[in-house]
């Protein structure tokens, strides 16, 4: 299990934001992306997750090993907490949801409609989804938004347990998770230089 990025260039809305990125994350390692707002962290993560193709360069990892968690949690307000989780478990071909509920202390809320949860509880539910997928590479975009200090500690413990089992986590975050073993990558130096307008389409960007 290894995530390798070679000379990657990513673009958002046709404009290159990051260029010349190369890194590798081995099993049991975490990579924390840092950089100012608009630096291209989300674009990079979406490219890693396969939601958009890279402009050039390559991303390599074993097939069907990635799970993505973005700004939105993908929670259906009409379904209960347990129903939301078991839906994602079934999509990923698994059944067990109780360890995920336990890891984020969601058991007392299991039968409550997700629409009644607070923002932090919704985020915990969104993060619990990662555990039911059974995927090894976690791609997380600002996972700690709206979490309180205790929930951040819960999240850090879950990530540490995941790494101990040979998993990989790539996360963009601005706060200190206490993951001392994680490698930090500042994406700001990889900012793409303004490219020459050599193409008809690009004249409109």
């Amino acid at each position: 299990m290894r995530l390798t990025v070679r000379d990657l260039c990513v673009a958002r809305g046709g404009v290159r934001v990051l260029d010349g990125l190369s890194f590798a994350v081995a099993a049991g390692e975490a990579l924390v992306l840092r950089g100012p707002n608009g630096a291209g962290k989300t674009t990079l993560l979406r490219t890693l997750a396969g939601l958009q193709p890279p402009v050039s360069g390559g991303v390599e990892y074993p097939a069907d090993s990635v799970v993505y968690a973005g700004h939105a949690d993908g929670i259906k307000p009409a379904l209960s907490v347990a129903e939301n989780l078991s839906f994602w478990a079934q999509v990923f071909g698994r059944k067990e949801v109780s360890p995920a509920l336990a890891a984020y202390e969601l058991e007392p809320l299991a039968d409550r409609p997700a629409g009644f949860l607070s923002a932090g509880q919704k985020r915990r539910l969104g993060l619990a989804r990662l555990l039911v997928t059974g995927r090894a590479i976690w791609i997380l975009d600002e996972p700690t938004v709206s979490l309180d200090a205790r929930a951040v500690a819960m999240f850090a413990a879950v990530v540490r347990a995941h790494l101990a089992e040979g998993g990989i986590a790539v996360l963009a975050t601005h706060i200190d998770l206490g993951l001392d073993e994680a490698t930090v990558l500042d994406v700001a130096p990889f900012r793409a230089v303004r490219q020459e307008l050599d193409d008809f389409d690009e004249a409109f960007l």
Partner: protein
Amino acid sequence: MTALLLRDIRLAVRAGGGFGLGLAFFLIVVVLVPFGVGPQSELLARIAAGILWIGALLACLVSLDRIFALDWEDGSLDLLATAPLPMEAVAAVKGLAHWITTGLPLVLAAPVLGVLLSLPVQGYGPLVLSLLLGTPALSMIGAFGAALTVGLRRGGLLLSLLVLPLYVPTLIFGAEMARRGVDGQDYTTPMLMLAGITCGTIALLPFASAAVLRVNLR
């Protein structure tokens, strides 16, 4: 795939899911037409098949934008795209769920509403059969339109404009089949054409929907 189908049906049936939306719209259109046309039962009997088809088509249209928009807004579509389900299967299942929650109730309600329009007795069989054959095509074409407009805020108008021309062949052959049934004529040819359109849309459009979804997710 079963999980996604069951979830979509469950979401549609629960509060705020819009399960009754299409059905209520169909009911309103068909109930209002006799008031507008007047109490001439021979005239109503002549236009009944066409009115029921147009009502079903419009009822289908009002619920289309929910197919992908809700999943797009709450981020589920991103997560489904990275899940082990192929995007083509997601598009096909979403179309099927739309048909079960919108198209099928319309098919079942049509004979009841046919009474209001004094539809001749021999017309009920062909009418229900034509709707049963035609509404899956409406859902699959609609899912394609919804996939095209998924990233747009208030894309409902654009969706209607895109989808309506694509609905025309289904409407022509479906209404023709029902009309011939009412007149007691042989309706094999329009039935085969309608079945062909439906089979074609089910076979091809999930691939087109998946392709535009991938582009829209970038």
